[in-house]
């Protein structure tokens, strides 16, 4: 097990290096001079040169990349052009909000997804099965920002049950968490159903039934435990979606998280901030996948051998 974790950690290093390189390249392709962006279009050329020197923009690209990497390793992602604050601080200030949104929607997704998936599988080809699978596919097909807008229309404007946007009370989180969660509940439900159907055809389930166990015990103790293993992977695969989904959701519900910060950075052409957010999110994503892989290996010992 320890071997496996170490192997995965080593494997993550080149990936992270590549991620930083691509992030660096992307932001260097952007048209426009960051120094001019900072000072404004009509800035004095001497002042622009001074800033360029200060920022190290006159150094060769590989030196700039090396410095970017070295600073990033120390947690220094530069300063925002627009606010002058350290990028790392701006990210860390907003990130907990995004995590809160992501976790509450993950909770909704797993609770709803598992329940619907298991019922659909146990009652295969029933009305519930057909109806919930159609709804689940529709849920996967609808763009999340549109679901959010429609939810605001119905529950906020029309029924007036919940606040439309903002972030002042826990009540404000209900709608965003459900909107984001339901989308992932749909894929979890589809996946749970199909793995569960595989599992209940296995011999050990027939054995459990044959020895006279109650159906409830067969389903919950024998089948569910084994069906959960692949579901963990699918939940892991959703981390990316959950992150990007929360970006869109935050923008719509005006939640001051990382997503809204990134949209703000984009519209203000704040290069270091955009760069920092892309890198930070990618790192979080790599770490998240690592945790999923490790927990998968923990649940299913066969994985460790590969």
């Amino acid at each position, binding site marked *: 097990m320890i071997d496996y974790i170490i192997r995965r950690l080593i494997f993550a290093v080149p*990936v992270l290096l590549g991620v930083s390189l*691509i992030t660096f390249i*992307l932001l260097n392709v952007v048209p426009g001079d960051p120094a001019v962006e900072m000072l404004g279009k009509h800035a004095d050329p001497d002042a622009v040169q001074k800033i360029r020197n200060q920022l190290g923009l006159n150094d060769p690209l590989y030196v700039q990349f090396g410095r970017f990497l070295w600073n990033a390793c120390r947690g220094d992602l530069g300063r925002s052009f627009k606010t002058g604050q350290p990028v790392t601080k701006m990210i860390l200030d907003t990130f907990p909000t995004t995590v809160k949104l992501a976790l509450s929607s993950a909770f909704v997704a797993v609770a709803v997804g598992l329940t619907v998936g298991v019922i659909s599988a146990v009652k295969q080809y029933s009305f519930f099965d057909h109806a919930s699978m159609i709804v689940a596919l529709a849920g*996967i097909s609808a763009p999340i920002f549109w679901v959010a*807008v429609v939810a605001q*229309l119905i529950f906020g*404007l029309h029924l007036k049950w919940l606040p439309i946007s903002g972030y002042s009370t826990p009540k404000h989180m209900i709608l965003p968490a459900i909107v984001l969660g339901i989308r992932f509940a749909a894929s979890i439900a589809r996946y749970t159903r199909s793995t569960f159907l595989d599992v209940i055809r296995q011999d050990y389930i027939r054995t459990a039934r044959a020895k006279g166990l109650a159906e409830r015990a067969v389903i919950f103790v024998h089948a569910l435990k084994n069906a959960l293993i692949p579901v963990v992977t699918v939940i892991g695969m959703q981390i990316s979606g959950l*992150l990007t989904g929360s970006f869109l959701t935050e923008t719509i519900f005006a939640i001051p998280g990382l997503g809204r910060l990134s949209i703000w950075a*984009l519209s203000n052409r704040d290069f270091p901030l955009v760069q920092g957010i892309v890198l930070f999110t990618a790192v979080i994503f790599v770490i998240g996948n690592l945790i999923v892989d490790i927990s998968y290996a923990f649940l299913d010992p066969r994985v460790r051998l590969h």
Partner: protein
Amino acid sequence: MAQGWNPGGTSFWKDVWLRLEKNKPAMFGLVVVIIFSAVAIIAPLLSPADPLKTDLSNRLKPPGSPSEICSNGVYILGSDEFGRDILSRILFGARVSLSVGIISQVLVTAIGVTMGALAGYYGGKVDMIIMRIADILFAFPDLLFYIGVMFALGPSIYNVFIALALIGWAGMARLVRSQVLYLREMEYVEAARAQGLSDARIILRHILPNCMGPIIVSVTMGIPGAILAEASLSFLGLGVQPPTPSWGNMIYAARSYMLTNPWYSVWPGIAIMITVFSFNLLGDGLRDALDPRLKR
């Protein structure tokens, strides 16, 4: 399905079609996809009005309101903030979605199949380099990567194609590589090699045709993903730029008028949902039809 000895013999693709034909949801998906494509192609003939034509005296009218710019005299789905006909804009928006779906998948397939075939067939260093690049691309949450690319290249529909292809090929390459790894060990490939055929000919004529099934499924599943990605980018203002109608930028514009004309934001979303839903149904059906072993 009646199996057994078949003197006439049916081709693989005919079998696939026979299985697909029996799958009602998939056929429903296929029909909607065909209708959607037809609508996109003949949008100018179907639209009651020019999608760019404004009428500031009739702003944000509810569905069914009388119209001066529509040929039938009504805003069937209402009008937007410039008095333009929402229905016509949705019909023209189908062109954006269709072209994003198809062109991005053509690029993804071209790059992904080439890379995957090279990596799988030659193995070794080629394989390692290609697959490590793919791993790095997989490490980006995709929307974030698209945002980065759009930020770097500037918002336009062409850059949406590029952004989608830049990251999308990696998944296709992984898929093709795993197929090629398996197929290159087959006896018929060895026979082809023994005959002295060139690598290119073996890959193109003997290996790739046998990967067509998974590739087709992946493309069918990739189109709805691309349509959703374009909608998200346009919604963030990074994709198709107004006044050109795209379903994503329509929803973005509609958000500001939720109180005055709530229907405005509903229609483009329904268009996206039906389209993506149908592609997903078709993709599920094709997967089952191409690999009947998976069928329950």
